[in-house]
């Protein structure tokens, strides 16, 4: 056979083979770090050795050309060592202080955005969108680009009270960590799927289609050998479309994004928090979703103006109260904001103390 020698279950390569020597040597013995600039930090080891990190933004969706370029830069300044962060940024791992400046110059030359370290906006966690996923109610990469262009200064220079973690999920499956982000977008449909009876009959397995619906909105339509959907029960999740692509969930006139805010994952100061609905819907308006960008800016500005140092978005909102959050942002509070899902009652205001 002309294929190379196929192996199975070997697992990933050993990370030890990918660590810069200074890391291997000082592994587990780091003492402290200093942030030298929005995109540069240095970690000091017990041994006195140091490692510098230069972080640049990445769109996550990369061409092999770009990956090769990154590799070349790493060769030139970092002995070939680099990594990606958990938010998809690129980190050049510099062992030789002398390389710090020329590396940054080349990155600037090549229009890489250096930054994202410290109390700033880092990269936006996001997922496939129209680029690759059947389930998407919006495009993730486009939204990210539009938002990050707007917030570029917060990546490269400007500070905020604390880190602001943004995320985009292109459907309610929420493959990003949207449910616990400072500010995030989640794309939603708002209309029950249209049933294309002829194709359903020929293409889809009825029992599994019916079973796919979490709200029991789908029932057999025996006359048509198809299914029918109870519009009142459908919550537009698109699960049925995954199983049977003839249940057309995409609906350009009604699809768009909701904005949630106030989530976090770390346990610092306050427990991890879920993001909460702040804007129930904004229509898809590609390529730059200006209304979405504006709404997110509005929230971010209010946070920047109102939060105390170190307060995350959710901590700030909880301190001032959601009712004040809605007042100062001018966001409209409506039926969709009131939970009616599994733990709805725990969100009701069971107190006589609140702000006007």
């Amino acid at each position, binding site marked *: 056979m002309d294929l190379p020698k*196929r192996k199975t279950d070997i697992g990933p390569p*050993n990370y030890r083979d990918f660590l810069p020597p200074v890391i291997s040597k000082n592994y587990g013995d780091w003492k402290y*770090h200093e942030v030298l600039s929005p995109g540069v930090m240095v970690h000091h080891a017990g041994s006195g050795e140091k490692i510098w990190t230069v972080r640049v933004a990445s769109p996550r969706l990369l061409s092999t050309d770009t990956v090769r370029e990154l590799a070349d830069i790493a060769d030139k300044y970092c002995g070939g060592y680099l990594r990606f962060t958990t938010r998809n940024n690129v980190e050049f791992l510099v062992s030789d202080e002398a390389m710090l400046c020329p590396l940054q110059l080349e990155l600037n030359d090549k229009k890489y955005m250096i930054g994202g370290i410290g109390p700033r906006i880092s990269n936006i966690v996001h997922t496939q969108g129209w680029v*690759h996923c059947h389930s998407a109610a919006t495009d993730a990469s486009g939204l990210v680009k539009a938002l990050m262009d707007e917030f570029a200064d917060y990546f490269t220079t400007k500070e905020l009270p604390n880190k602001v973690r943004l995320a985009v999920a292109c459907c309610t499956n929420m493959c990003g960590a949207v449910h616990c982000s400072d500010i995030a977008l989640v794309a939603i449909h708002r209309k029950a799927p249209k049933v294309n009876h002829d194709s359903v009959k020929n293409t889809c397995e009825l029992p599994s289609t019916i079973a796919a619906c979490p709200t029991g909105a789908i029932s057999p339509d025996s006359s048509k050998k198809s299914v029918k959907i109870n519009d009142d029960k459908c919550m537009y999740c698109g699960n049925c479309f995954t199983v049977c692509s003839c249940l057309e969930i995409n609906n350009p006139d009604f699809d768009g994004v909701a904005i949630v805010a106030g989530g976090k994952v770390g346990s610092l100061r306050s427990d991890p928090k879920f993001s909460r609905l702040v804007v129930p819907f904004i229509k898809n308006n590609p390529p730059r979703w200006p209304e979405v960008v504006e709404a997110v800016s509005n929230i971010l500005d209010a946070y920047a103006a109102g939060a105390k140092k170190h307060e995350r978005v959710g901590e700030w909102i909880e301190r001032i109260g959601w009712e004040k959050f809605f007042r100062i942002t001018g966001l409209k509070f409506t039926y969709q904001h009131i939970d009616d899902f599994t733990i709805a009652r725990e969100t009701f205001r069971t107190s006589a103390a609140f702000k006007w």
Partner: protein
Amino acid sequence: MSTESDTPLLDELEKGPFPSFVSEIKKAAAKNKMALDELKQLEKSYRDKRGYWKHGGIVGIRGYGSGIIGRHSSLPQEFPGVADFHTVRVNSVSGFFYTSDSLRQICDIWDRHGSGLLNMHGSTGDIILLGTSTEKLEPVFAEFSSRGWDLGGSGSSLRTPSCCIGPARCEWANIDTLDIIYNLTQEFQDEMHRPAFPYKFKIKAAGCAVDCIGAIARADCSIIGTWRGHIVVDQSAVAEYAKQGMDIQAEIVNLCPTGCMVYDGRELYINDEDCSRCMHCISRMTKALRPAGEKGATILIGSKAPFVIGATLSWVLVPFMKLEPPYDEFKALLKKIWEYWDEHGKNRERLGELVIRRGMREFLEFVGVKPSPQQVKEPRRDPFFYWKDEDFRRQ
């Protein structure tokens, strides 16, 4: 005006300071037909405000039940390059460390057999090779596996475990996140590649409560490093922070959630017994404060995205566990967890949903973990609780 572009809408997204994914697709499209049709179909999506993908079909690698996501254009006539456009999930390296050579290796293979587009990384942590046709899957796999790479998880299997950078470059790591994740991934290859669980299962490890991997929000099993002991205070470093202008009272003491700190204007005192190890003070005064004592991890379970019962955050199962190679105690626990899930989980029921459905007691008894107040924010409020015969014997 320039000559009319085929992709006027996407072209807009090449403007502005943030690196453009459109430029990336175009770079690939310049030499790859799949990438070109990806670009064109995406332009149509932007025009029509809707996606054009269909799920599914059974595509995969011989001997594997996971690692590939089958995908088809719903407009294969118009965009034949993406008629089939499956993604390949390649298991990444712990801590997302790479060498330039390893990256070039990946690129070379992918240029030969795929679209030339990839995600570094997918949000579970795989290297996502973004799109190729069905017949290319086996060659891609052979190339990768012969060079020491393997597939990640998909479907009802263990998903690619991932971790924060931990001891590799972070002063706060209480556990060796990289080694744990590597070790577990190697140990559970079968669970990852041959889906036999009721649904997906994710493991994420963070070195401390800062949780830079988001473990608590998106892992059926979240491992979060911590310590039993105290925080060592270097008072001269405290003084230095004050000198540099830090308002220690406002920024540190007042934000401590347990109120266990006192600052008298010169020295900082911590009542360690009351500290919840939240990491706020340490993260802001990294030169002055340092955890000391026994290192280990809190094991939490159950977080997931909203389907179907609503999003969950992981909750504490084992408040403290030592985690040292070969991690036998943890592995034994994990196996018991899977055994429980296997026994009681419904199809497509995540672990967290199952435990919520059947209650913590049965689960704790099964996996052999004692009830402890650390597992709850607060005890139950309603007086409806069950008794078993052994409870009567215990009293």
